[in-house]
């Protein structure tokens, strides 16, 4: 209680500071130069919209305009190609970056935060702590230096998707796919009809990481998985091999051309009623809606079934996104204020009104208007105690893409070589430069 009160007072203090800053800025404009340092919060703030096309621009404009209306600070926004921004992130952040932008939690913010490229937003998260769940703040905290380099905003579940109508047709109940045996039965019956049991894409090298993540968490638990990805457990361990045993059991049910398709091919398989089950991030659901309401209503999502009763369904891949502030931006204080606004109730409301369909972690986020699929997504997220961020955000960048991706691809091509592949993966981990 007292802590909460503290937060409130802290919030109002901050608010006061912001207003004071704005006042000073106005004064500064009148008598130029008198309060140049204090007027920083009043200077323009630059925002990068990371992809999203027209919808992305509309959402950014809505939130940024609301920020301007509230604080009087002008926001200058630009949209960039998401992949380019991601690939050149270190260079952009060392140049003259925009002050605030949407970014990803986990290794991707912690790594660049430790390198001094992202500003510490611990104070902003603290100011938002009344609406942010403790788990989200925990997830946004760098385990190494205990600082936070991102204000958590949205997330989405990686879970098992299927079409209710197809499951009914093979004589199963779409509401109760709970166990590994249920999944096997679903895949077997679908395959009998000449369709794909479990659709997988492995072309990009990252799609199949989702299946590995969840299998490892189901077989060995969250802690082992995170330990493995951070070098505290070994790839050659019998436990890791056990995970790949389950992975191998899925291969006979997969489409044979998994090396030729990526996530969009997987989505199309489900969209065209060609596959029984698919593990993927729920972001693709909008494409079902775009095709027809009937297709969208037919889509369903459940947690990946339990395997080891010790862990049940206590873990899920739910990549957490948020807002980060560039440490080298021209207006760091302004960037922090804008980032905090994006994480606040007003910011979320503005984004949702502009067509944002993401699930926000904030307790202020109103889900009463949710349709049944979105409510089910929330239920799937709520069923898990531990949140993984996906393999390429849970481990270092020079390991995930260059080493684990090809290792899983090689396993899918030659499942019998798994021992050799895991030995090699472990050797490549040990060869990495230690920080």
């Amino acid at each position, binding site marked *: 209680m007292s802590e909460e009160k503290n937060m409130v007072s802290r919030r109002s203090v901050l608010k006061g500071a912001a207003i004071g800053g704005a006042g000073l800025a106005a004064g500064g404009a009148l008598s130029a130069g008198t309060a140049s340092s204090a007027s920083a919060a009043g200077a323009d703030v630059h925002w990068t919209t990371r992809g999203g096309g027209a919808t992305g621009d509309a959402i950014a404009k809505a939130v940024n305009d609301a920020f301007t209306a509230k604080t009087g600070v002008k926001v200058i926004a630009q949209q960039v190609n998401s992949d380019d921004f991601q690939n050149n992130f270190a260079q952009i952040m060392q140049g003259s970056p925009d002050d605030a932008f949407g970014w990803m939690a986990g290794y991707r913010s912690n790594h660049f935060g430790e390198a001094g490229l992202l500003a510490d937003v611990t104070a902003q998260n603290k100011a938002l702590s009344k609406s942010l769940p403790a788990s989200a703040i925990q997830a946004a905290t760098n385990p190494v230096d205990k600082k936070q380099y991102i204000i958590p905003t949205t997330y989405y579940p990686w879970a098992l998707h299927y079409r209710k109508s197809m499951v009914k047709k093979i004589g199963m109940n779409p509401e109760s796919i709970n166990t590994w045996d249920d999944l096997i039965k679903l895949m077997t019956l679908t395959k009998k009809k000449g369709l794909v049991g479990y659709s997988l894409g492995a072309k990009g090298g990252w799609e199949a990481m989702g299946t590995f993540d969840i299998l490892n968490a189901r077989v060995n638990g969250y802690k082992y998985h995170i330990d493995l990805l951070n070098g505290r457990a070994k790839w050659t361990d019998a436990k890791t091999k056990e995970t790949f045993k389950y992975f191998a059991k899925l291969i006979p049910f997969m489409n044979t051309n998994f090396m030729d398709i990526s996530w969009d*091919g997987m989505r199309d398989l489900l969209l065209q009623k*060609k596959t029984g089950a698919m593990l993927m991030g729920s972001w693709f659901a909008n494409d079902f809606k775009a095709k027809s309401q009937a297709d969208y209503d037919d889509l369903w999502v459940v947690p990946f079934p339990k395997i080891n009763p010790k862990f049940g369904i206590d873990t899920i891949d739910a990549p957490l996104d948020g807002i980060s502030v560039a440490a080298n931006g021209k207006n760091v204080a302004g960037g922090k204020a804008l980032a905090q606004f994006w994480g606040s109730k007003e910011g979320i409301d503005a984004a949702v009104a502009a067509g944002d369909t993401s699930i926000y972690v904030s307790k202020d986020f109103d889900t009463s208007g949710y349709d049944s699929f979105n409510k089910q997504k929330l239920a799937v997220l709520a069923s898990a105690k531990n949140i993984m961020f996906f393999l390429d955000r849970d481990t270092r960048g020079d390991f*995930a893409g260059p080493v684990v991706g090809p290792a899983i691809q090689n396993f899918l091509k030659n499942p019998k070589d798994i021992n050799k592949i895991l030995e090699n993966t472990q050797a490549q981990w040990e*060869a990495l430069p230690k920080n």
Partner: protein
Amino acid sequence: MKTAATVKKNRSRRSLSKTDRFTLTAFVGIPTILQIILLWVPAAVTIILSFTYWNGIKLEDIRWAGVQNYKNIFVNNPLFYQALKNNGIWLAFFIVVATPLGIILAYQIDRGIRGHAIYESIYYLPVVLSLAVIGIIWNFMLQPGGFVQGLMGLDIGNAISIYGNSKINTWVILGIASWRHIGYIMLLYLSGLKSVDPALKEAAAIDGATEWQIFRKIILPTMQPVNIIIVVITLIESLRAFDLVYIIYGSPTIFPLLNLLVFQNFAGQGISMKGAAYAVILLVLCIVPIITYLRINFKEDLK
């Protein structure tokens, strides 16, 4: 007479040397400086970086790694040997199949066979497309859900695995790359053939030389300068292959090539100086054969 000539010579030398000096400085000096700044300095820095650990962010984080990056590539990394194999097959295929095909086509077209203008434009067409565009076109044709798979009545679920099938994808990729390379070589050779004196061929024919003998003993030797260019281009095109495969796969792991591995380890999220080491390996692989080849040829020229 003598003195007048010397004066004239002197004057012309003097008057030339002023402008010469200026033109020489401008036309040789500036490109040389640019070349050094934009090419040799980065190359030298890359070589140095390949012996370090660095994530590309803060200069003070650079740590000496010795040959560790190279050791990681040679000892632990199956992708490297796959890439080496793929680049090797690419080079061999271009040397043995694609380049000779281009030369033969050029020779046939130069002989003026019927409809040669049509053939010429058909073979030349792919050359105007960049490899990236060619990648997009052939991806659209052969990927699951693509045009060819659709013609065969195959949907995504049962589409034939082509790009992902390691038994055939090498040959599919090489076929696509050759589609462009053959036209390119044909064009280069054709322009050279146009400058061969037809009297040479006629004389040989009168002396009773066969078509093959004329090609081998007359055309090839007179085309020596073009041949050098073609060999160098074939070498470089094979070793620097990147865009086509990158567009088709989007990632370097299914059909690894050295350049793709440079990119994966040197740009983006997985940045480490292993990428620099890959770049140095590629540089050595490109430069050594080219220099050797050029030296042999220029030595012959000097003789």
